[in-house]
């Protein structure tokens, strides 16, 4: 491992796993963190999670840092199989930050909490010297109630299970890049959204659902890799089935980026028993927020621990995790 932290240590890819495993988990060795889920079930009843938000710009098409900080924690709870109930809200402000902006951010927190049916019940505010932060950082933690009959984990995944995404892929990452670098003037929008409207369906299909995750940093490709790495199974996803917004696809084409590695902030990946997949996906698509949901692939035994991407023309390639440097391999 490199001796100092680089930006790549925060991209949700290979280096992020390295600091989590080699530095943090090794030292803390708290066994509740060990199975690497974003939300952890405690006392068999409650889900508990935390998330920090350092996004810049603070206001962007489709949301702001306030909305994002609720979505992030709420979605970790929902994807961890819980009904979100209570949040903490910790804000770190930089000297000189406009109070008007803070006001708008907190209002956004409130609106999103209402939508998600969660309450902010505790909080904290700190101010750092000018130059020691980028205006505002937020941390939220959340507690939820575990959904009954739901048993989530990589070990449940079997060949024949279907892989579902609840909507278009890669919107957040690409739109934030455009926003930050002032590209394609505001055509794209973040997908930032709480996933709470999935809860009734998660309850209904509880015994068929194997694992869920919100594919944030590192994108869909990295999340799928985490499902199968070091296992005996593999995932094959098909290009023609991937729901991708036309504008996002266009932007990716121009930037030379792959939407499968771009972050999402309002999407869930759900692995569900293949026998109920088509029935389940229809119900998901009936919810307006998830009308672009799709079955994008399946679990199989083609390989050990790999994610395979089948192109329109029939050829396949191995879809790895996001790596520290996406250097070209091709002549």
């Amino acid at each position, binding site marked *: 491992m490199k001796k100092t932290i680089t930006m790549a240590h925060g991209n949700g890819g290979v280096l992020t796993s390295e600091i989590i495993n080699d530095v943090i988990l090794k030292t803390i060795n708290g066994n509740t963190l060990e199975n690497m889920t974003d939300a952890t079930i405690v006392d068999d009843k409650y889900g508990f999670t935390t998330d920090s938000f350092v996004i810049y710009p603070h206001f962007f098409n489709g949301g702001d840092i306030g909305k994002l900080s609720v979505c992030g924690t709420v979605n970790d709870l929902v994807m961890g199989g819980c009904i979100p109930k209570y949040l903490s809200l910790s804000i770190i402000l930089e000297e000189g930050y406009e109070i008007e902006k803070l006001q708008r951010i907190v209002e956004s927190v409130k609106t999103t909490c209402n939508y998600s049916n969660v309450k902010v019940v505790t909080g904290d505010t700190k101010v750092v010297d000018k130059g020691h932060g980028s205006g505002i950082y937020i941390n939220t933690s959340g507690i939820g109630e575990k959904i009954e009959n739901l048993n989530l984990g990589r070990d449940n995944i079997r060949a024949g299970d279907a892989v579902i995404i609840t909507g278009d892929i890669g919107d957040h990452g690409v739109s934030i890049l455009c926003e930050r670098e002032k590209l394609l003037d505001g055509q794209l929008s973040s997908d930032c959204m709480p996933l709470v409207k999935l809860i009734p369906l998660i309850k209904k299909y509880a015994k068929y659902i194997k694992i869920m995750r919100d594919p944030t940093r590192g994108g869909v490709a990295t999340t799928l890799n985490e499902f199968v790495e070091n296992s005996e199974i593999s995932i094959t996803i098909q290009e023609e089935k991937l729901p991708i917004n036309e504008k996002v696809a266009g932007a990716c084409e121009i*930037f030379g980026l792959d939407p499968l590695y771009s972050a999402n902030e309002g999407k869930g990946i759900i692995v569900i028993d293949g026998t109920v997949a088509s029935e389940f996906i229809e119900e998901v698509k009936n919810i307006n927020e998830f009308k672009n949901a799709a079955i994008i692939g399946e679990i199989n035994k083609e390989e050990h621990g790999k994610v395979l991407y089948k192109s329109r*023309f029939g050829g396949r390639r191995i879809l790895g995790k996001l790596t520290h440097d996406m250097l*070209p391999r091709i*002549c």
Partner: protein
Amino acid sequence: MKRNFIKVSGIVQGVGFRPYVYKIAVENNLKGWVNNTSEGVFMDIEGNVDDITTLVTSLQTSPPPLSKITAIQIEELALTGFDDFTIKISEDNKNKVTLISPDISTCEDCFHDISDPNNRRFEYPFTNCTNCGPRFSIIKNIPYDRCETTMNKFPMCPECNEEYKNPLDRRFHAQPNACDECGPHLWLESSKGEKIECDDPLEFTRKELLKGKIFAIKGLGGFHLCCNAYDKDALKTLRVRKNRPCKPFAIMVDDPTMLRQGYSITSAEEELIRCKERPIVIIEKKHGDDLFPLELAPNVNTCGVMMPYTPLHKLLFKCEITALVMTSANMTSLPLEYTNEGARENLSSIADYFLFHNRDIHTPIDDSIVRIVGDRFQTLRRARGYVPLPLKHEKMNSILALGPNMKNTFSFSKESNIFMSQYNGDLESYENIKLYQRNLEHFSKIYDFKPEVVVHDNHPTYYTTTFSNEFKVTKLSIQHHYAHIISCMAENNLLKKKVIGVAFDGTGYGDDGMVWGGEFFICDLNQCNRYAHFEYMDIQGGESAIKKPWKIAVAYLNQAFLKSNGALNEKQYENILSSITGNENDKKTLITLLNKNINTFSTSSIGRLFDCVSSLISVCNEATYEGQASIELEELLWNLPVKSDDSYNHVINEDNRTKRIEIAELICTISKDILNEVPKEIISLKFHNTIINIIVDICSSIRKEHNINDVCLSGGVFQNSYILENSINKLTSLSFIVHTHKDYPCNDGGISLGQLIYAWNKTKKERL
């Protein structure tokens, strides 16, 4: 009287060695026996001293045509009194290396058999004998015996069996021996998988080919897609269906002399076309009338040609058929199809008909591609006809070199042999990775190979780098371009020397984490110093930019302008920028992304520099196949009957004791020529000459400082025959000794050899 035990090693299996010995023994009244083991051919011989000498002499001077003897060991034994001379059956012995023959084109005798109406093999498409036919592609295991090949499902008829058992017959122990009675047969299917009933599938095929139909034909190492080379519409259809708009197709002709009408073929080239390996040979068009429609090879003035190498292919050339397109049958990014099921599944949208047969191909192998540049032989793709011939070396430990990611081959060492696999394609594709693994398993099995050392490329995300983790043995890795140069050194017996290494290609992971590709090294097997390199230029858009030369042109032009200090004024810059084909908004976005350093990488690649120039002068803006932009830039030179020495000035600066060849200034000068409406051909020529001058300059300054006179040219850029030939000529005229690749490709297909030699040298020392 004397008794000798003689061991002959080399390629001695399946080449008619035992009947050859038998014949000489019988003629010379020798007694004893001969057999075939995986260690080689053994014989125990009793007879007159002179007669034994006759045998040994003929082993040395006129062995069977397909054999390659590497050693003859003779031991004297006590007389035992044999009654007769016999051929013993094969004995399995797995201690030593048996050399397997490549697949060899049909011999003249067999071609004669199939064209003689009185011969029982008249028009039989699977005719072969001990001097010809399939070998490597049908072998499942060794020793090479029928039961270990895909011919095991065809019991021989009494007549074939007679030939097989008769030591004086040309088909004695010819493992794939067969006839119409007992052997494999052909049949036809439509693209929908319906069997087509007809008396003569070959006649049907010929007729339909003449009508413009496209066939998938199962050959020796895999399927070809085939159509009449004169048929413009068929060529167009094939291009559309195969989604291959531009990449040239290879052709097959029965009579190469007919090509003289449209191509300039030297006698050396014709000899190469006719050689028993039957590779695809690249030849150049003459100026004047075109022999074939332009759709055969759009924007390219060369043609890849081969002759029929199986009876099946030979039998296609009848009636009016004289030239056929024969292109490897595969869908984009999928490997060569070689099973009937695979062909049905993946080729039904391309072919109108399938010409199938039921002799299974165990190991798929592509056609090899070779060429003559100046007076040097050059292999561009090493496969059928050449694999698995080994490169001889001193005795080595067992090393596995995993090869590069693109144009992959792997190599391994066993005893004193280095075996290089056939071309495995690009390991970006999962299907090619599976093929790679299968080929590796197959080679490991037939050569009983287990690696003690594994070596791979330095690139952190090459498949081979990840794959190396599956071996629990000593692991080494080597820089891509250094491996290129060592590969060239190995082919030219320079392993004890210090050389000037010129490695020019598209990409390779550099020691500084940048993408290299225009490198001058001073190196020997122990170390490699980067003496000079091309200036780093930024490219935006990762791998996708490589298919879009316009992006590279915009990127380089933008950087050249920013660095130019007024050499190019704003207006000139804008003019050139707008002359590059492409959407204006996309160009603007690209420049923003470049300036903000979003998804960019830096490279010293010459391949990319060619792409840039190619797009700057609007030759190729989008590449539909690898190397298209560079190839089409070189092809412009063909239009110039006289090629001058004109070139651009080049500037070399130095930082941290490494010389840097400036690109920005070169781009500015080229831009001015574009503005002055200098013809594309001239710009291309001046650019080519500049690259050659740079090679000569840097080599000269290395010689001055370090007194090294041997130059190794390696990397895919040396597939450019103008660069190759003129670099050789200029360097030679300055008394450099110039070494180039011959039997192994200068492109990434040759890298595994360099990796292996590097690992051998490193681990050899550690053991001392």
